[in-house]
């Protein structure tokens, strides 16, 4: 009960709410300056999100990978690492799942889990490279993981184009039905929105994120190293091994995100000119959510929702996508700047407190 109270105390709800409001206001100013109607734009955003089962389903689809990448970033962050290579781990996860999904032919109860696990391992091992480099050679994980992003992108393009390609096309042969993780009855229910098991796995991952870090001995070690590696070493923990483990686990979360984009949404992988950006958006999501499990979920919903709904803004109110990015950007800016918002709302609180004093 106490913890619930702590999570939902006044400022933890009020500050983000006001931040979102401020962000929307700044966005509105940007739109007014450009000669667009912000009210129409915002109502078309909401319209887009909630108008039909299809749109709601697709919004959930857009939110799902952000939950994975958000957890990946937040997890690493909790253990003192900045995993900026979630993007590459995401791509490796996609590739792992595609390889299994395309090349093997197995009964579904083996094929699908095998594809998921392979993708997750691909992501995890890819991240572990940066972890090993940090642990053994002291290479900063920010640098190594961001470079690994590019290697992952072109490596997976190479694999796709060389071994898995559909003749005459820029994409792989389709993943076998036995490996797909779509939820057909839900797809029907949501008017053909692309629903898949990944969303549920993402929610489970949020629970895993919490349990692993705050309930297990492994998590105790990970957090101790994150907060104070020197003291952790004094307490007999193997700091280097912990760094590798932490990167691996973070990469598994990222990889799973990629897995479900293939097995749940597309069913094939393309040769990509640039990666999708879910990994980098994951950084914003983790930041929005303050690196807490529930926060990451809410952050992903906000970020994914805005992203998906923004197409409605350009469609319904004619707002160009660049201006839409300004709106999203300003919302994130205010949510991320707790301090600024607190400073903004402080005068209101002080006034109220004064009044209370006067009343006494």
């Amino acid at each position, binding site marked *: 009960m106490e913890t619930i109270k702590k999570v939902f105390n006044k400022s933890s709800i009020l500050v983000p709410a006001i931040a979102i409001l401020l962000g929307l206001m700044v966005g509105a100013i940007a739109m007014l300056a450009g000669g667009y109607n912000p009210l129409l734009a915002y109502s078309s955003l909401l319209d887009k999100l909630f108008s039909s089962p299809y749109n709601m389903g697709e919004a959930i689809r857009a939110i799902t990978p952000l939950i994975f990448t958000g957890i990946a970033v937040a997890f690493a962050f909790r253990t003192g690492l900045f995993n900026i290579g979630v993007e590459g781990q995401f791509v490796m996860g996609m590739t792992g799942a595609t390889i299994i999904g395309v090349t093997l032919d197995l009964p579904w109860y083996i094929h699908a889990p095998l594809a998921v696990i392979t993708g997750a391992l691909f992501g995890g091992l890819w991240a572990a490279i940066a972890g090993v480099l940090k642990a053994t050679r002291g290479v900063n994980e920010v640098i190594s993981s961001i470079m690994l992003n590019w290697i992952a992108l072109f490596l997976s393009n190479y694999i796709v184009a060389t071994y898995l390609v559909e003749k005459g096309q820029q994409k792989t042969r389709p993943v076998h039905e036995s490996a797909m993780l779509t939820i057909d009855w839900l797809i029907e229910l949501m008017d053909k929105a692309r629903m898949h098991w990944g969303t549920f796995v993402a929610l489970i991952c949020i629970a895993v994120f919490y349990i692993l870090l705050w*309930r*297990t*001995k*492994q*998590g*105790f*070690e990970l*957090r*101790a190293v994150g*907060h*104070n590696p*020197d*003291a*952790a*070493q*004094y*307490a*007999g*923990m*193997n700091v280097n091994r912990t760094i590798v483990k932490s990167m691996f686990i973070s990469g598994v979360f990222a990889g799973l995100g990629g897995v479900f984009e293939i097995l749940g949404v597309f069913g094939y992988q393309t040769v990509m000119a640039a990666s999708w950006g879910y990994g980098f958006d994951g950084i914003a999501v983790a930041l929005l959510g303050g690196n807490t499990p529930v926060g990451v979920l809410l952050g992903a919903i906000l970020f994914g929702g805005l992203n998906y709904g923004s197409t409605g803004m350009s469609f319904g109110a004619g707002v160009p996508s660049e201006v839409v990015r300004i709106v999203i950007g300003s919302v994130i800016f205010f949510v991320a700047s707790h301090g600024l918002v607190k400073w903004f709302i402080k005068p209101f609180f002080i006034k109220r407190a004064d009044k209370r004093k006067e009343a006494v």
Partner: protein
Amino acid sequence: MDRSLTAVQLKGITKRFGSFVANDSIDFELKKGQIHALLGENGAGKSTLMNIVFGLYQPEEGEIWVNGQKTVIDGAAKAIDLGIGMVHQHFKLVQPFTVAENIVLGNEPVKGLKIDYKLANEKVRNISERYGLKVDPQVRIQDITVGMQQRVEILKTLYRGAEIIIFDEPTAVLTVQEIEELIEIIRSLAAEGKSIIIITHKLKEVMALADMVTVIRRGKVIRTLSTEETNEQQLAELMVGRDVNFQVEKTKRKAGEVVLSVDSLQMKGEQGKNALNGVSFDVRSGEIVGIAGVDGNGQSELIYAITGMRSVSGGSVKLNGRDITNRSPREISVAGIGHIPEDRHKHGLVLDFTLSENMILGNYFEPQYGRYGFIDYGAMDKLADKLVEEFDVRASGIGAQARALSGGNQQKAIIARELHKNPDLLIAVQPTRGLDIGAIEYVHKRLVQARNEGKAILLVSFELDELYALSDRIAVMYEGRLMGEVDAENRNDQQLGLMMAGDKTAAAVSGKGG
């Protein structure tokens, strides 16, 4: 200058943190040109009070008068405007910047758009000469000693025109010589007309330095008196609130079996020099062996070697006859070594963890704290409750962050944890650094008690008083080797001092050289 004028006056200052009253209607008056000590134990509310004067906290009640004017100090910038400067206990300096850059930071002389470094150096040199604070403006902070860094902090306040300077525990990090120099500096600042407040819990310094002293206990002013009309004993009793015994009661040594045996230990240091140069000694059960020496002569490395934090290049470490050389810290700790590290913030505690999490920091993997990879928070809290009670660790609760505890209570928590492991050997490095009298008394008592219970104790300290009070034997370390050993009872200050300075003939006199 009129020394009867008041520089700072506090009237009825009250500051609460939640339900905790840190300052309870405190009255305080600092006269111009005076050195006024604020004496109290850790957690008594001294630092809180001074942070209020420096504008970092806002009091709930009370008035602040500066130079006869009632003011509200709503930030450090306002405090600096009013001519108040603060030298913090933990320095706030930019390590890779030069002395001059640090001093002018935030108020740089500019030429066009560029910083005028020549003028900055010039200005720094001027004030450093004027107040007799010798520093080289062009060296980097990371290359100078802690004592020098403190001078830079003092110069920083002077550069910003401080007339009232607050020192927060200024001697906590200094060596004996540096403390003497600091006392000189503070005296000359007062002679120049600066008004000075010193936050401290060291009685000797109060007596040596201050004109007036205000004793604070549990957030309340107990008494303000002139140092001429008091003495250390009285101040100690006012501060702690009861009789204080400076002497540690110790029974005669009953040394038993050899617990720790270190044999010709070698460790590579920086720049090709050996940090340890063939160190050999034994520690037996039921005795305290002290390691004396000036900081930086291999004491830290010796402890790193024994605890497995760093690998050695030669020699051996044996615990109860078992070879533990170059084993992992975990193995060594499990083998029976408890360790109270020198830097409790860096090595002893995870400050962002709760008190109870810190209590199992080295033991969390043991089955009694949870099975199947999970942590049994119930068992953890139970242990924490027990240790907090037994070792009198004062905190708002076992769920409090370690960061929120006072230094003394943090140290008590570490000692509780390490003794609970029931080690055969307890290593204590500077165990009372930065602690107040009550806590020092307590730590000393616990160490002697552990010795009487038959534990072997290795004590590293830079304070001779502490080594004398606790040790049965004292070994002196110099440049990575032991100069010799003295019996703590038949010691000779002069000889010990010479050995610490590396004088081999002094070591020979003791008859146990090498």
